[in-house]
């Protein structure tokens, strides 16, 4: 119990840190936030249940008014903005990524990649696109068009998530709670 609580709290903090540290540029010249990488890692490292709880805790902190979203955004306003769908999709993304890693017994790197792509891109974009279409008054295909510029960055992040999860399992085999 204590261990689960500590992991959930620390990974909520990790998502915040990955969104706030601007120095981490994933590909040179293109500034993309590592925040959604944190969400993917919550799922692949902590597993479905704990990962989703960590992301929910992070969102709770944001809703309470802490400026933890990338770019120092936060407060209730972000839940009325165009990116609300992505926020609602965050915990589901971690849940799906965790489920894939837990249930699919292929090599860890491949399972993490599949989980990160399925959770952090397919599921997350589905939520995000619906959110944008509602708030911005666009049809679903039009909203999908607005999300495409971020696709390349998120594919890179899914790849990095797989690399990092695999590397973590090598240096600290016991630490991977998604595959105990």
């Amino acid at each position, binding site marked *: 119990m204590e261990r689960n609580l500590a992991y959930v709290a620390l990974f909520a*903090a990790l998502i915040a840190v990955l969104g706030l540290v601007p120095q981490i540029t994933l590909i040179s010249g293109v500034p993309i936030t590592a925040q959604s990488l944190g969400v993917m890692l919550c799922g692949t490292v902590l597993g479905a249940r704990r990962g989703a709880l960590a992301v929910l805790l992070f969102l709770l902190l944001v809703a309470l008014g802490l400026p933890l979203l990338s770019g120092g955004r936060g407060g209730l306003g972000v839940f009325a903005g165009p990116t609300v769908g992505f926020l609602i999709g965050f915990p589901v993304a971690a849940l799906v990524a965790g489920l894939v890693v837990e249930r699919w017994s292929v090599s860890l790197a491949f399972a993490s990649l599949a989980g990160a792509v399925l959770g952090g891109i397919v599921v997350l974009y589905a939520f995000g696109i619906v959110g944008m279409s509602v708030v911005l008054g666009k049809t679903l295909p039009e909203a999908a068009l607005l999300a495409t510029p971020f696709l390349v960055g998120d594919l890179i992040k899914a790849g990095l998530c797989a690399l990092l999860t695999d590397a973590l399992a090598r240096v600290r085999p016991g630490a991977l709670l998604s595959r105990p």
Partner: protein
Amino acid sequence: MLTLTSPCETALHRLPAAGKLAALAVLTLTLMRLTDLRLIALAATATTLLYCAQGRIFTLHGARMLRPLWPFLLVLALWHGVSGELARGAAISLRLLTAVALANLVTMTTRLDDLIAVLERLAQPLAWLGLKPRVLALALALAIRMTPVLLAKTSILLQAWHARSPRRPGWRVVLPVLLIALDDADHVAEALRARATL
């Protein structure tokens, strides 16, 4: 750690947090149903007046909090400029700005501990599902405390990188940050186990 609550003490700060949250929910749902530009403009004007009544510094701070929306407003302007439905574009943009501004107003005028008190009351029914309000409060407190700790450790890590390499730190830095988070979690778990029963 800094919160987004405004340091300018206003009359709105003294209203009960639960009331403000309920009013915000009702207003946002109503606003989302509006499509008539005149009604939306009325709501936007009312919101602006509400901000202005709280003083100049507060209003400027509120305007700054709307800044992250500009890419979306730009897209809407281009989109409806090309399609020619300018009134519709103006209605959507104004509705978006008003909804976000209203929500920001609650965040700016409600202190963190008041919001947490409301949250604890709302979370009481969750005890039936096995989530004790005490555990939720502890998780919130831990995450609030550990975020600056992890941020400080990460910046030390980045300084160590800069001391050794002329290149910018890349994604490789994330692995040690991940390890720090896992180690800290283990230490926190041990400390919790030694001190309390959950």
